[in-house]
């Protein structure tokens, strides 16, 4: 049952079927062995342990009695859990949405022809590349209650001060804004890469056919960046939900746990309250959430593409 050549190419297979069936080759297995071993030790084995911890009472010093779904039931009755679930969602949602819009706008801008655009491209990647702790030191000062630049400036026009880090609402906004600032360059970079490989003659053809800029963006540009957009958006959602550094370094989850996402909640239960069972249960639920989200989105992508 040979597929037609163009079908095979679409499926990413070589156009010509290799008829010579090679005998079993041990080399690929050997080459993967070291990587598989370290993944097993550092992620798979701990994962199995984590599943087991989540069904037991336990502290960092030792595992206690089996409690079945007890830890999970405690979570489902805990407002902290629902709050961090909600915060993880809005954190990821706004981060992806705004990073995408900003990233696309800047990618379109950098795709124009002007002197110094190479410099601009490099300079715009800086927020993404510097260590989180460095940018948080800076942002913490910028939005500090007293002596911070924003409040000094607001004060000089008779407004404020705004307590960015001690008011729950503002703290959530601050954490999300800073996360967007740290992630949009990644989106910008991958969209720029996709824009640069679009065939220029398509735009010329569009111009000859009398299409305006908006129609060209809609009918030429967007279809070409759709796939990369979806994949990078999925990645960014995963990374946002897994983010520990931004909220922890900025607010440590505060004030009164307002900026606590699922990862921080798991961290606080485990290392703060020494409740390994509960902390592991949060981590397992986070993994399940991520797997469901990415499966759904991959499916969606397969349908669109």
């Amino acid at each position: 049952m040979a597929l037609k050549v163009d079908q095979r190419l679409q499926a990413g297979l070589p156009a010509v079927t290799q008829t010579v069936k090679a005998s079993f080759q041990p080399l690929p297995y050997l080459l993967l062995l070291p990587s598989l071993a370290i993944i097993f030790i550092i992620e798979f084995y701990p994962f199995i342990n984590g599943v087991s911890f989540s069904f037991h009472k336990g502290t960092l010093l030792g595992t206690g009695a089996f409690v079945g779904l007890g830890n999970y039931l405690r979570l489902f009755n805990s407002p902290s859990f629902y709050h961090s679930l909600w915060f993880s969602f809005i954190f990821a949602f706004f981060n992806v949405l705004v990073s995408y819009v900003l990233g696309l706008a800047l990618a379109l801008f950098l795709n124009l022809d002007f002197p110094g655009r190479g410099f601009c491209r490099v300079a715009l990647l800086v927020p993404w590349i510097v260590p989180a702790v460095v940018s948080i030191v800076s942002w913490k000062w910028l939005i500090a209650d007293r002596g911070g630049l924003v409040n000094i400036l607001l004060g000089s026009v008779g407004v404020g001060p705004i307590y960015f880090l001690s008011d729950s609402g503002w703290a959530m906004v601050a954490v999300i804004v800073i996360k967007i600032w740290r992630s949009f360059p990644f989106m910008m970079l991958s969209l720029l890469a996709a824009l640069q490989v679009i065939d220029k003659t398509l735009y010329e053809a569009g111009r000859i056919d009398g299409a305006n800029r908006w129609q060209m963006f809609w009918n030429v540009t967007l279809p070409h960046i759709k796939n990369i957009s979806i994949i990078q958006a999925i990645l960014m959602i995963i990374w946002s939900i897994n983010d520990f550094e931004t909220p922890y370094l900025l607010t440590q989850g505060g004030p009164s746990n307002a900026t606590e996402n699922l990862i921080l909640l798991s961290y606080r239960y485990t290392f703060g309250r020494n409740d390994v069972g509960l902390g592991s249960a949060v981590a397992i639920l986070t993994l399940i959430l991520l797997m469901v989200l990415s499966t759904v989105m991959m499916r969606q992508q397969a349908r669109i593409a």
Partner: protein
Amino acid sequence: MMKLNRRWLLLILGLAIVLIVDFPIITVILNSFRTTETIVSSHSILPTEPTLANYLFINTRTHFWTFLLNSMIVAFASSALAIVLSALAGFAMSRYRARILGGYNQALLIVQMFPLILAIIPLFIFFRNLNMVNNFTPVILVYTVTQLPFATWMLRSYFDSIPRELDEAATVDGCSPLRAFVQIILPLTAPGFVAVAIFSFLFSYNEFFISSVFLRDEDRMTMPVGIQSFMQQYSTDWGSLMASATLGMIPTLILFFFIQKYMVTGATAGAVKG
């Protein structure tokens, strides 16, 4: 003429955007040359009376250089390990067809989305029982694993760009596949290797979470953990904090400068599908 004007206007717009976006980073550097008193009271961000006092404080009163050295050790070891492992796996994925390779690609996808906290809890207990808290080994191993997905995908795409005929010709001439890899593919993909190595160095050098769990003694802390401990100790001494942050990002900015042209491959490596 009009065309020329438009291009220069775009440049000015670009520089304005850069200034806004990089403002927090620029202020770190400028503030590191100002005393805390001026930082918290002045409307301007320019250092009118530049001082090195913050840097002297960092140099004499803190363990900053130890933090930096620790970061270098951890980052160097983990990127070296990651590059060796992912070169082997990437080579297998580029040159062979076996069922396990597809499975391995799936495994990398899962590694990439894995919430590290889930591994950290058991690993912390495990390594504490081995008396290995404040030891670099667990940190290096975890960093290595987190870098495997992108490093493998990136190296694989570099290997894919080398025609198979080259190493096949060598194997036909009696060269073993591994020797063909080392003598033919490796030299051709050397720039790619450097880029991946620097990427993974940067990742480890910048990373805070895993280090903060395992490295708790002051003489073992990495740079991000050290600066975070300064944030708690000297929370309002902005001058010294800014100086340590400036020093901390210098290695990042230097390395970034070298690999910025490879950034595109790095950013899209995750999008490579098996």
